[in-house]
């Protein structure tokens, strides 16, 4: 089920919320069970065939979590062995569903064998729920999490606001909230704040992301077909995709945070104005924060982090980003995207070391230059992220480099729409302004709320959120945004991150 669909907004969500709070008045356990059941319905709406895979994954991970937790202090080897087995099972399942054909194709290319493709269909959200559970297992192993209640564990994994496309949550952050009786009581202030996030997310997805998508797709498609592109066309397409991806995914994340807040449960913010980043390392503190935190805590640090010298640190950075790239999809373009970001981070760290030796605070020009360079590097990498083939990516890049002076006519790229290029650039300039100059969703909402409406990467539960007298003007403006979003809801499109 899509958040941006009438069936979800007018059917599923009201039923889930009303049922949760009504049952919560009777018994918290009933309410948690209701939410878990509704979350499974939400997941199975696309294709019920994947529900057993999800439930099997939950069962295996819960079992291993219990076994790890049950180990005595003197059973360190057994504990570690259980963790390794569980992680291996998870990664094998992920590899089978996500990477089987990719491995076969590459094996065929390397060995000359002609193995038949497995044609495995990717279960929705498998990357997200696998990573969520991997983090749980590792946290259990590190004595940072424990869950004895199977119902709560099911709810932790399937909780519908985050199930399909994150944010990747941690047991220790979210489940203690379900242990509080106050969570099961309707809180009108939190509901209102959640609604604001939901509207902002819907607007970002339905109006901004879907609006600019019409200008990204044709350019990348033309590049895939080998059509030479002018610099204006190629840059227009690359920038359009840059903004489409941001508003699509951050819109989804806002909706997830908002829906969860309506249920009195805080989720972590996943974005913090990434296109305002002044360096690539700053970018990764602002983009898909729950994934970058996961990669830091569960890949980079276990690889050794920065503990074994500069050379090992840079190697670990590169490896972490390559794994991050592969996590997004089974294709070499994703590996190149991850590799590029790894390279960027390596350069960034070397530059930081050099800059540290020079000393002195960064001036305004240096900060602006850093921001522009970061944005440029990110856009170049997105070309590989979006392209479906290496050929398509290089065609785009050669266009962006101005190597196709004549290029193709705009009418041929945009199927007859001659003024599409002007529209593309109008969108891009407007969205560049929005992403670099305006506050992001949480900064926007924070003006009217005395409490953090969502948890950060580290949980800081500061109690019930309260209003700071938002005016009628804000309500009217939000109503306008909601109308613009709902107007575009009649043709719902999938969220880009559902594919990862």
């Amino acid at each position, binding site marked *: 089920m899509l958040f941006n669909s*009438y069936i979800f907004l007018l059917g599923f969500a009201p039923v889930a919320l009303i049922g949760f709070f009504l049952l919560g008045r009777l018994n918290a356990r009933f309410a948690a069970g209701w939410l878990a059941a509704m979350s499974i319905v939400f997941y199975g709406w696309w294709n019920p065939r994947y529900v057993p895979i999800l439930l099997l994954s939950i069962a295996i991970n819960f079992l291993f979590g219990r076994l790890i937790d049950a180990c005595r202090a003197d059973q360190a080897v057994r504990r570690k062995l259980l963790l390794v087995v569980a992680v291996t099972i998870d990664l094998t399942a992920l590899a089978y569903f996500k990477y089987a054909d990719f491995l076969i194709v590459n094996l065929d290319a390397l060995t000359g064998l002609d193995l038949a493709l497995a044609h495995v269909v990717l279960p929705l959200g498998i990357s997200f729920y696998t990573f969520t559970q991997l983090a749980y297992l590792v946290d259990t192993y590190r004595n940072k999490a424990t869950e004895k209640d199977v119902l709560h564990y099911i709810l932790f994994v399937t909780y519908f606001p985050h199930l399909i496309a994150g944010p990747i949550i941690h047991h220790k952050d979210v489940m203690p909230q379900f242990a509080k009786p106050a969570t099961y009581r309707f809180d*009108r*202030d939190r*509901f*209102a704040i959640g*609604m604001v996030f939901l*509207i902002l997310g819907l607007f970002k997805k339905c109006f901004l992301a879907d609006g600019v998508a019409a200008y990204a797709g044709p350019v990348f498609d033309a590049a895939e077909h080998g059509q030479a592109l002018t610099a204006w066309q190629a840059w227009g397409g690359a920038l359009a995709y840059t903004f489409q991806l941001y508003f699509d995914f951050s819109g989804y994340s806002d909706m997830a945070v908002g829906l969860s807040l309506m249920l009195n449960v805080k989720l972590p913010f996943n974005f913090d104005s990434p296109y305002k980043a002044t360096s690539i390392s700053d970018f990764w503190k602002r983009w898909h924060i729950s994934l970058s935190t996961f990669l830091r805590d569960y890949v980079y640090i276990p690889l050794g982090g920065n503990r074994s010298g500069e050379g090992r640190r840079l190697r670990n950075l590169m490896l972490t980003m390559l794994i991050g790239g592969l996590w997004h999809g089974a294709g070499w373009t994703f590996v190149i995207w991850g590799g590029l970001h790894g390279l960027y981070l390596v350069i960034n760290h070397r530059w930081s070391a050099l800059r540290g030796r020079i000393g002195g605070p960064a001036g305004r020009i240096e900060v602006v230059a850093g921001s522009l360079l970061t944005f440029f590097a990110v856009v170049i990498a997105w070309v590989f992220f979006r392209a479906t083939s290496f050929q398509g990516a290089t065609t785009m890049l050669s266009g962006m480099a101005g190597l196709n002076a004549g290029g193709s006519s705009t009418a041929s790229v945009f199927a007859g729409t001659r003024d599409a290029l002007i529209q593309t650039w109008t969108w891009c300039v407007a969205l560049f302004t929005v992403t670099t100059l305006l506050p992001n969703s949480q900064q926007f909402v924070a003006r009217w709320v005395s409490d953090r409406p969502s948890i950060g990467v580290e949980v800081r539960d500061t109690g019930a959120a309260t*209003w700071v*007298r*938002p*005016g*009628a003007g*804000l*309500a*009217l403006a*939000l*109503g*306008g945004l*909601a*109308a*613009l979003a*709902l*107007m*575009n*809801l*009649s043709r719902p499109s999938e969220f880009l991150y559902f594919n990862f």
Partner: protein
Amino acid sequence: MSAPRFLLLIALATLVALTGLSLLPQDRYQRFAEAATESKHYLRIKWIYERIHFDETPIDVAFIGTSHTQSAVDSRIVEAALRARGQDVHVVNFAVPHLGRDLHWLLVRELLTSRRVRELVVEVQDFEPRAPHPAFQRLGSVGDLVESPLIVNTGFFDNLARLPRRQLDLFMPAMAGRSAFVFSPRGYEGPHWDDTERLHGFDQQRTGTHPAAYLDEQAELLRTALHDKERLAGRLRLPSGCSVLKHYNRIYLDSLLNLARERGVHVTFLYLPFFRGPEQPLEAALYEPYGPIVKPQGVLDDVTSWLNVDHLNVSGARRTSQWLGDNLAVAAPGRPLPAIAAPCS
């Protein structure tokens, strides 16, 4: 402001904005022309409006139907055959792919409120449909969509949901003074739009045939589906055409037929089933009070007439058109309408 008031104000503002957008003005020609740009299958929709409103050639016999009629009736052949029989009439094929009586009613209303027609030839299939026609939401006015029956109308909310965006899309270019849809005689197809040889917008000639065994195999699937529908209708213990599940389309079919009667227009039903389909429509009782049901049996029995299991090829279309011209009884002006007793009312 308290949270409930704040939420209420958001809801009100949203509602007002969406209602305001829905009420933006635009003209009908623009709606028809815009719909034609959305799908190659709807190319003829713009022409339909132009034929009714911008072409003064009379319209004596009008075919209303689906892709079955679109691919089976060449109006020029029907017209020539009728003239050979001494009937000086003008024939037009207004069929649009997909079966939905809401669209048929809308087209008939457009036609009969502007033109004097003698005979409507309305296509019937084995069963009346349940769902709305996808083009209804594109062509219907705000009033048409809002006043649409609610019971078992699977498209009601979807149609309303699309309305603000549709109205805005039609309004903006008109406001900017660059509406692409101004009638031009140079771009007009003429009094006949023929899709029997080749569908407009598609390259393929409609000349193919299939072996009888293949068509039979395909037809068997349709027969099974039909049988299932019959069983379901039996379980509901209603004549299938009166089933509440078809309430939506029945209302539009009744409105269409009543409108025709109000205007003194005779109706003939053209039955075009699939290859070796039923002898007569399973809901024949619905139509018989309003007019005769005709079927070019000989053409339909011939395996060489079929492009696929439910559409005729160009050869089948030519013979069907000729058969219609030879057999259609076009009502003389002023001939009284048959008395009716609607079977489900």
